[in-house]
């Protein structure tokens, strides 16, 4: 550690103003603050003393993603060997999954961070840490068999068009990880949907349909048991299958106050409400499945915990968060049941509400203003 500090201190003057590598200042700054806590302190004016900054925030989210990631890696291997009809121990399955998932993670981080750094140098701002989370979310929402070049293109699209053109971290309108997935979903539908892509190197005879895929064609009886959908031993995107692992992450996010429990609760509420509504309607077999099953299938849990709660693209006001979350849940289930083109509604409903989040905020703020004005008038009269 000492060695590293000395090394950084020695290099620092080169990157300061007037130094040889002045242009690369933000790159140096990013690495330095990543490795060491900054020793600069505020000296005057009002300020809040807190250890939490954006780097710590983002790292907590990455840690919260770990259970889902580890389970996802295992599940990729498990599904592969299951489709081949072979039974293996824990480690071969985990190893196979690692070989599949690790390259995707590396590609997403390398491409995304390279673009982030390039933009930070060129536009002379600090390198923001937002991508630490997006870079981990992107591999987790991809199907296990996704070609690496697609991951690279999608990441580049999401970072440049989804984020940097709006001014970088904190300014994006849509969630970058979902932008990447939506881009691939519409640009290369054959690689991102259907029954073939959810199991890595699947044997041909084995059906690789996800639970949502079964439901879409009306095969309600082929649905896996609730327990296996909850634990996540089903085909699906890398990180989305295990509701249990995602719940572990949710506990951490709520306990540290980083993920908004208001959004999570209201998304679940919206999903359940829509599911129950469909139960009452009951026009086909899909509408008759128990409402709680919507929560453990597909990307609902993952989207609720990690995507909908994105502090940048979600609603900012408290009341707005309830409205935002509730609509996400409702529209997700609605798209699942009604739209035969897309088995998974979660991604699209979050994107849609990302678009309308500023509008929700606008009206919440306006209603607060008019309420207070009214109160002020009453007081003035009295």
């Amino acid at each position: 550690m000492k060695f590293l500090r000395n090394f950084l201190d020695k290099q620092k003057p080169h990157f300061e103003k007037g130094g040889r590598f002045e242009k690369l200042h933000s790159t140096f700054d990013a690495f330095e603050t990543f490795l060491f806590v900054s020793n600069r302190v505020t000296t005057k004016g009002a300020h809040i003393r807190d250890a939490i900054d954006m780097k710590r925030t983002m790292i907590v989210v990455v840690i919260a993603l770990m259970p889902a990631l580890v389970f996802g890696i295992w599940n990729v291997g498990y599904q592969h060997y299951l489709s081949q009809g072979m039974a293996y121990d824990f480690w071969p399955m985990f190893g196979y999954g690692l070989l599949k998932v690790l390259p995707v993670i590396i590609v997403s981080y390398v491409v995304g961070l390279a673009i982030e750094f390039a933009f930070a140098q060129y536009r002379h701002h600090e390198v923001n840490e937002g991508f630490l989370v997006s870079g981990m979310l992107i591999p987790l929402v991809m199907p296990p068999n996704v070609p690496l070049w697609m991951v690279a293109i999608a990441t580049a699209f999401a970072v440049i068009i989804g984020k940097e053109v709006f001014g970088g971290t904190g300014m994006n309108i849509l969630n970058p990880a979902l932008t990447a997935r939506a881009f691939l979903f519409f640009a290369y539908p054959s690689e991102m949907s259907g029954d073939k892509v959810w199991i890595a190197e699947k044997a041909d005879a084995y059906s690789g349909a996800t639970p949502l895929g079964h439901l879409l064609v009306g095969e309600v009886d082929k649905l896996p048991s609730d327990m296996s959908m909850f634990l996540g031993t089903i085909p699906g995107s890398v990180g989305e299958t295990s509701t249990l692992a995602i719940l572990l992450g949710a506990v951490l996010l709520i306990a540290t106050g980083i993920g908004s429990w208001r959004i999570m609760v209201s998304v679940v509420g919206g999903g359940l409400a829509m599911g129950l509504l469909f139960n009452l309607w009951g026009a086909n077999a899909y509408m008759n499945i128990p409402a709680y099953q919507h929560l453990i299938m597909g990307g609902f849990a993952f989207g609720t915990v990690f995507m909908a709660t994105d502090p940048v693209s979600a609603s900012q006001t408290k009341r707005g968060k309830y409205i935002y979350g509730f609509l996400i849940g409702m529209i997700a289930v609605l798209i699942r049941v009604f739209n035969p083109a897309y088995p998974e509604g979660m991604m699209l409903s979050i994107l849609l509400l990302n678009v309308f989040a500023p509008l929700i905020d606008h009206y919440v703020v306006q209603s607060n203003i008019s309420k207070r004005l009214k109160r002020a008038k009453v007081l003035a009269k009295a």
Partner: protein
Amino acid sequence: MQELFNIFIRSIFIDNMVFAYFLGMCSFLAVSKTVNTSVGLGIAVVFVLGITVPVDYLLNEYVLKAGALAWLDESLADMDLSFLSFIMFIAIIASMVQLVEMVVEKFSPALYSSLGIFLPLIAVNCAILGGSLFMQEREYQTVAQATVFGIGSGIGWFLAIVGIAAIREKMRYSNIPAPLRGLGITFILTGLMGIAFMSFLGIKL
């Protein structure tokens, strides 16, 4: 009733004027700077579409369509005036926009001045003519269907412009690269919103 409801939902979300057909872009891009102005323009568009589509429907049904003049005289039964539909539709739209303009000027001078030239320009807003032409092409059966379609399309356009206006109000605090400021980023934004709206594409009603 079911049929009317389907047309209504279809025209708002699935066949959204802005995100599915990219119609009415000029005022969509130019007037969406603040939420309040865009609400005003949006309501004006809902109103104009809600009136012109059913009026154009009646015109099409009883004057323009092949054989539509049969109610006048037997000898006119093989008359086909549909080559006149563009000019007739535009005439109806222009007169309706005049009406809206007078109403807005009378009741909300502030909105009138903030909408500026874009209020009379509703007359050449492609979404309005598009509404009438879609009505003709999709062959709606009754005047009620045409009305519901017109109002629904207007509400879809209204949602789109109000949504983008709220985003643009928020974006004022962003450090957008200089070459993209203004219209450039708005175009990118429209594209991204279009991706989000694609969630409804493919729903069969």
